[in-house]
């Protein structure tokens, strides 16, 4: 039985070769010293696009969130101007509040398990 090559990490991208010969791309980002997975993708292009969208989303946290009217206008503009549809679509998707889940430390996890038992 052949052993698939090891996963390789290059910047935010973790490339995992699978048994069936395909590859899975995991995108990891760091927030306040903790790494979070933002998604798993089957192609490098999808992973790159997801990472770029995430970076844009992070930058847009510096701006005031869009109002409902502005969101509506953006959607209308994306419909009316097909040349800009992909750009405006990515922009409106990225312009939302980011939430990183709180990761539990191992110590509290052990306590939690003890409590359950």
């Amino acid at each position, binding site marked *: 039985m052949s052993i698939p090559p090891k996963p390789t990490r290059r910047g935010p991208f973790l490339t995992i070769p699978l048994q069936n010969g395909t590859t899975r791309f995991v995108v990891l980002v760091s927030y306040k010293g903790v790494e979070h997975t933002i998604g798993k993708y089957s192609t490098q292009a999808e992973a790159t696009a997801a990472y*770029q969208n995430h*970076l844009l989303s992070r930058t847009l946290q510096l701006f005031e969130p*869009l109002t409902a*009217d502005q969101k509506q*206008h953006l959607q209308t503009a994306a419909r009316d101007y097909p040349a800009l549809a992909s750009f405006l679509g990515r*922009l409106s998707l990225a312009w939302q509040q980011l939430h990183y889940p709180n990761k539990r430390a191992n110590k509290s996890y052990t306590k939690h398990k003890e409590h359950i038992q």
Partner: protein
Amino acid sequence: MITFTTRNIPGLSKTIRSDGTPVWKLMIQFRGRRWMKSHMTLEDAIQYYREEKLRQTFLKWPPFTEAELQVFTDLLNRQPDLRSVLSPILAAALAAYEPTESLSSPGRSASHQRGLPKNQRQKGTGGQVDPDILFHTYARRWFEANRTAWTTSTQDATRSLCTKHLNPVFGGHRLCDITANMVEHWLRDQLKSYSLALCQNMRKALASIFYAAIADGVVSANPVTDPRCMLPTYTTRQRLQNPH
């Protein structure tokens, strides 16, 4: 409503001029480059910070074609509600596709940067430096120039290294008078009293100060990178101590 302070914007600091007016200094670091901009108000500094962050984000995006740009301008003219939202985005996206050479360079000319490793270029303290400057004065200047880019713990550790270990030995010497021989003797003494890791940290800080001095044109070579001033790594030391 987002509240911006010096705590949530990295590189932002507030200084008070002698006439009492506040100045907001924003240091941006990106791809090994570093530049400082002074702003009269916090709003201006935040505006610049936002634009710069957006520009950095759009660097990897495909540039707009002429037709797309035309459509975008048309959209802004027709929909005034979206103008306030999309104008900074468009400006940043366009700025991202401009050649980077147009950005102001913080460092000195290339002649002062010769012989520096890639990651140490343009990291001088900026401004005119007296060629006869004493080590402790320059170390303070280097520390002040870099502290905004460091966390509080790094600042404390570096301050401690400078005041406890570097200044007592080199503080009174002119920067240009410090030789590799002096550093070698000092390192040998330090290794007798302190751990290898601490000595490596001391050497690292000293080397950074000299790299900044090269970028500022005060010295022409870094005495700390002389082969005589190299320290063994942990594994090499183990091997030397236990050859079998």
